[in-house]
């Protein structure tokens, strides 16, 4: 009975979405306040109904109700409680339900916090949000219904995929979806602006916080996913340029570009049309990502569930929204007044440079991801486009951007002074060179590109701090004055600095681990030792254990440095009985920002075991950097300027500015 209630709530949510999709937009056309207000009410109602529906599915999973097909296929009565919760979205149907739940959550946020928006803009935004919600609710109900019942309820479930039985699953997908789907708000704002045929700096000011919030969540989601893959898969890799990873990375790149172009639009009323296009493209890339992941067109480590009918349905949604949005853009973009010009060397110019590189890089990743599909469709030849391709193209393209990052904030709006900025970055360049030389001596040489990469990262960190330093006037004024100046700076200045520092930290991690990691594969018997990264690893023996739904074999290792024991580590192989599936649980020990990573291989006939040992220098920098980026996003989001100012002006321009397209 409760299950049917969830199903019913989902159908009702579709109905309220339909109201929300149609009525507010009619209201905006006729300037009918009551009709527009329906959008706000419907958005809240849809969210509550979706939440109820999702709650019921969660209830079915937690109580292990195997009469529900979705629970039977993806759960087991013995798995720990947390995996019963996270198992709700550890499958196709549940994850789509989560997708729509988050979509309606954002619509409800717009409904609640959008009181400052012009009435028609808010109504149109909510309507566009509802179009998306209607499409995906239909998708769930018609092709992926999580509430399907089994006639004879089985006594036991088929278990959650063991790879997914990890805390990572509890966190990674919701964060990723908050990011992915969060960009839907930017998309809806862009479409609403095109429908109204009006756009101004205030629009950018409303869009920026949504972009920031979505971007911050997406950064967290991707970073979390990367760390999860790193420790769970037991290969020691943290990024595979796998199509599914690319599917989340492309919206991230586009979203990063959007974040910067919205800044230009907000401050200088320039790049309007481009920003609208970017907002459309960012969410389109999110939709494309959903399609790639959910349709199973890709050969990928992530393609857990695949079904062609679903693929076709999402492809239709994709074509409808991207095609529709771009057509609308083509018809209406000319109505948006283009902004003013500016000198190529200026803050705006730097941000255009940023956008040029980020969008080109995103396009490159997109091409690399889709090319194998296109080639196969056309010629039948099958190729794999892997890390060599992406390192060569994406890596090289991003290089000029990395060099330019510290320059951006130092250039003035309208007309900047490149030479002056260069002079002010002198200390940062020197710092980078010093760090590079220190690494050179510490490593007795090393590949020149790696030294350059680390120096570049150090330069970015120092360069991002340069702005704060200069603004404080430290050295010219007393410490107290400098402190007052710094604490008086807008928070977004700190946000920028933090995010740019994070980029530098991540770069250092990536370069260090790529260039200086060591990997040994050795056969070990108890008592034998092997060296890695200045530490000695001694294998002590194997032990058999049992978990709630698996059995495991664990190896114990003692780590010592210069003769004294410093740490110990367990590394295991698990065997999940319900699915007859083995997994590797790598053992990791952290030393500073570096890690020793141990995974177990086959047992040998003579009693030994194959052990794979990695020394991962500075690897934690990769994720530490993303934490800086997220902190930057959060700090910028808390900037007062994003919350006050614009609304008062906007309310006066309430009359509809819609003009017939000529």
């Amino acid at each position: 009975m409760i299950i049917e209630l969830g199903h019913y709530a989902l159908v009702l949510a579709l109905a309220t979405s339909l109201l929300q999709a149609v009525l507010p937009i009619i209201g905006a056309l006729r300037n009918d306040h009551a009709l527009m207000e329906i959008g706000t009410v419907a958005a809240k109602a849809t969210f509550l109904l979706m939440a109820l529906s999702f709650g019921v599915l969660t209830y079915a999973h937690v109580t292990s109700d195997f009469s529900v097909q979705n629970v039977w296929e993806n759960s087991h009565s013995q798995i720990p409680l947390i995996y019963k919760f996270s198992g709700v979205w550890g499958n196709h149907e549940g994850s789509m339900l989560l997708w729509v739940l988050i979509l309606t959550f954002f619509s409800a946020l717009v409904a609640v916090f959008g009181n400052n928006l012009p009435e028609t803009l808010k109504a149109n935004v909510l309507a566009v949000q509802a179009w998306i919600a209607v499409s995906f609710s239909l998708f769930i109900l018609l092709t992926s219904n999580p509430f399907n019942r089994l006639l004879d309820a089985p006594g036991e479930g088929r278990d959650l995929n063991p790879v997914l039985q990890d805390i990572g699953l509890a966190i990674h997908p919701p964060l990723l979806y908050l990011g992915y789907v969060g960009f839907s708000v930017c998309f809806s704002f862009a479409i609403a602006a095109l429908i109204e045929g009006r756009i101004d700096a205030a629009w950018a000011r409303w869009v920026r916080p949504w972009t920031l919030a979505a971007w911050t969540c997406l950064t967290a989601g991707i970073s979390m996913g990367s760390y999860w893959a790193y420790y769970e898969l037991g290969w020691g890799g943290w990024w595979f340029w796998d199509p599914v990873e690319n599917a989340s990375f492309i919206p991230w790149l586009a979203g990063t570009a959007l974040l910067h172009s919205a800044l230009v639009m907000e401050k200088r009323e320039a790049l309007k049309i481009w920003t609208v296009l970017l907002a459309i493209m960012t969410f389109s890339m999110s939709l494309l990502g959903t399609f790639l992941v959910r349709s199973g067109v890709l050969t990928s480590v992530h393609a857990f569930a695949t079904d062609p009918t679903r693929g076709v349905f999402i492809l239709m949604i994709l074509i409808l929204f991207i095609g529709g949005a771009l057509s609308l853009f083509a018809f209406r973009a000319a109505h948006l007044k283009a902004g003013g010009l500016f000198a190529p060397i200026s803050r705006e110019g730097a941000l255009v440079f940023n956008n040029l590189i980020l969008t080109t890089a995103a396009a490159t990743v997109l091409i690399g991801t889709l090319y194998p599909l296109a080639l196969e469709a056309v010629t039948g030849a099958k190729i794999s486009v892997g890390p060599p391709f992406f390192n060569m193209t994406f890596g090289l393209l991003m290089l000029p951007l990395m060099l330019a990052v510290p320059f951006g904030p130092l250039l003035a709006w309208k007309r900047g002074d490149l030479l002056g900025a260069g002079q002010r970055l002198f200390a940062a360049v020197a710092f980078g060179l010093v760090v590079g030389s220190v690494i050179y001596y510490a490593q007795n040489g090393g590949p020149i590109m790696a030294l350059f990469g680390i120096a570049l990262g150090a330069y970015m960190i120092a360069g991002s701090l340069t702005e704060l330093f200069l603004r404080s006037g430290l050295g010219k004024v007393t410490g107290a004055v400098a402190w007052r100046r710094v604490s008086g700076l807008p928070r977004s200045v700190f946000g920028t600095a933090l995010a740019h520092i994070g980029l530098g930290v991540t770069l250092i991690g990536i370069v260090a681990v790529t260039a200086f990691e060591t990997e040994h594969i050795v056969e070990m018997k108890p008592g034998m030792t092997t060296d890695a990264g200045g530490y000695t690893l001694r294998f002590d023996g194997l032990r058999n254990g049992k978990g709630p739904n698996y059995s495991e074999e664990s190896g114990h290792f003692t780590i010592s440095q210069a003769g004294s024991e410093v740490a110990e580590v367990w590394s295991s192989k698990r065997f999940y009985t319900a699915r007859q599936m083995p997994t590797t649980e790598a053992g990791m020990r952290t030393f500073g920002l570096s890690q020793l990573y141990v995974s177990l291989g086959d047992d040998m006939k003579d009693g030994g075991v194959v052990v794979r040992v990695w020394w991962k220098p500075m690897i934690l920098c990769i994720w530490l950097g993303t934490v800086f980026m997220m902190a930057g996003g959060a700090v910028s989001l808390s900037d007062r300027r994003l919350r006050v100012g614009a609304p008062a002006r906007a309310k006066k321009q309430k009359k509809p500015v819609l003009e017939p397209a000529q």
Partner: protein
Amino acid sequence: MTRKQKRLVMIGGGVSFIVAAVLLVMVAFSQAIAYFYVPGDLMKADLAPGTRIRLGGLVETGSLKRGEGMTITFSVTDTLDTVPVTYTGILPDLFREGQGVVAEGSFKEGSPVFVADTVLAKHDETYMPKDVADRLKAQGVNLGGKENIQ
């Protein structure tokens, strides 16, 4: 600078960057990609030694030799033709005889043995890499409806 010059600089800079990116992508496509083969295609393909490819198929039952040192040998088959493979390292969790596999690597000069540096196994109980399933179906192997069904 006049407006016209400014615009010219911006557009020129943008276009030249994009052209550079396109060239880079084209170079990378000609160098940094790997073609996919099943054993039956290799005879026709006539590969130069050292060319990186992906070899896909099923792990031939009874061919896997492990537990004798770190180098593992097995054979990849499309049920008609078979290629011996060596791999040094730890096989993925789901590597098993009779199941789908994709090995990435190359043939060394004058040797019929494929030296793999990466081995990807199917990662779900009923999942087979799509490349493998398609090619095997094209070769007429009955997969028993196992591929791509959850």
